[in-house]
């Protein structure tokens, strides 16, 4: 099985301003001159059987295209250019107009270990189904909480701030989704809605969404601290034999 990789790179990255005032977040460097985007592309290209790589672009599009122009064809993703930010649910919907096969969706600010991606691949190939990848986190630090029932079928995915603060681990959304068939999702999302609020909720309602917990290391670059953490992590991983 080969599949598409969709990297979500259109966000404004406001939490990393002023770094992101002139540079889209996926283009922040993480290891010397290597950007977050290039790291994702190279890692996934190396490990996964990918036919096409896409990135959606909306913020600072000229800068983004100029960057893509400069990287090797082998690692250059195709572009979904959104003149107005669509929201990730609509980006997936737009992609389904040009591609219907299996698609892995990943937020363009994630730094993953190679072991993480290998685990993810094994899970997809062993049983291809609608999947949200998740990890364990203290409930009072979690932004989204996943509850699961029998056979790891997701029963709810809610904003954690709606729940009482509990000092124990919960499952949270990792920002990586596997969609075996885009047309089976069967909805037209409203502009501005995110995957978690739209596509995943539809799949949960029909009992089709499964969760898989990955314990390997990941960093989501959504603050200055996390950016530094990501850089340390990449450096350490590079030094590992």
């Amino acid at each position: 099985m080969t599949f598409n990789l969709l990297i979500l790179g259109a966000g404004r990255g406001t939490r990393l301003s002023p770094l992101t005032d002139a540079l889209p977040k996926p283009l922040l460097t993480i290891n010397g001159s290597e950007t977050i985007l290039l790291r994702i592309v190279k890692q996934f290209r190396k490990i996964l059987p990918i036919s096409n790589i896409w990135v959606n672009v909306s913020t600072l599009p000229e800068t983004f295209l100029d960057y893509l122009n400069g990287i090797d064809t082998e690692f250059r993703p195709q572009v979904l250019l959104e003149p107005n930010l669509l929201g990730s649910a609509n980006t997936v919907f737009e992609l389904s107009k040009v591609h219907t096969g299996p698609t892995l969706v990943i937020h363009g600010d994630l730094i993953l270990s190679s072991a993480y991606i290998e685990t993810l691949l094994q899970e997809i190939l062993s049983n291809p189904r609608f999947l949200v990848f998740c990890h364990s986190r203290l409930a009072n630090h979690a932004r989204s909480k996943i509850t699961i029932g029998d056979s790891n079928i997701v029963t709810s995915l809610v904003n954690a701030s709606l729940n009482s603060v509990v000092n124990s681990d919960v499952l949270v959304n990792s920002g990586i989704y596997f969609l075996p068939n885009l047309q089976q999702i069967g909805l037209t999302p409203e502009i501005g809605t995110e995957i978690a609020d739209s596509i995943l909720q539809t799949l949960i309602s029909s009992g089709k969404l499964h969760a898989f917990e990955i314990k390997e290391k990941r960093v989501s670059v959504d603050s200055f601290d996390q950016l530094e953490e990501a850089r340390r992590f990449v450096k350490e991983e590079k030094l590992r034999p």
Partner: protein
Amino acid sequence: MVLPGDYRVIKGGVSKETPKRAIFIDIDGTLWPDSGPGTILKNPKISSEIISELGNISNFGYLVIGFSNQTFFGYQDKLNFFEILNYRSKVRRLTKRAFLDAIYICHHHPNSSISYLRSECQKRKPNSGLIKWAKEELNLELNQSVVIGDRLTDIAAGQDSGITKKFLIANPRSLERNISTRTASSLCFTFRVSRSLIDALQSIKSDIS
């Protein structure tokens, strides 16, 4: 002699019988550097590498078609008969110079000072009229075809006509003016980024092999 709002040249011997795929190539800024309205009249140079690649890509079963908004005449106060003849002669010669099987041109502009060229023409990019015109005349399979251009308007024209494989030769002017351009069927534009026409043609060949 009246300059029609649209103009096309088809090279002799191009078969219209069997369905075939095509590569639509924008002219100014893609085939050669854009030096403003009427670039073609200034005898722009086409690099030998481009000429070689264009000759080569025909062997992969594509018709190679130039498509262009040419508003040069529309910017003038009145038309010059000899300039029109000269222009047409250069367009005809271009089919031979650059191994193009056909060239489709729209001369309309919504703000033209020549009244009969002043129009919101459906052939003018980002509209897809030029591509659809070529499809009808040359029996093209657009879902197997390709668009290459240096502006988002080229991508929009391709997308609106149902062409899925599109290459944007990105430069600082690619998104100028057109960033809000949308097609009726889509909220975004899908394309690959290329450094040059040669880069795009090589990608097409590499996809086939």
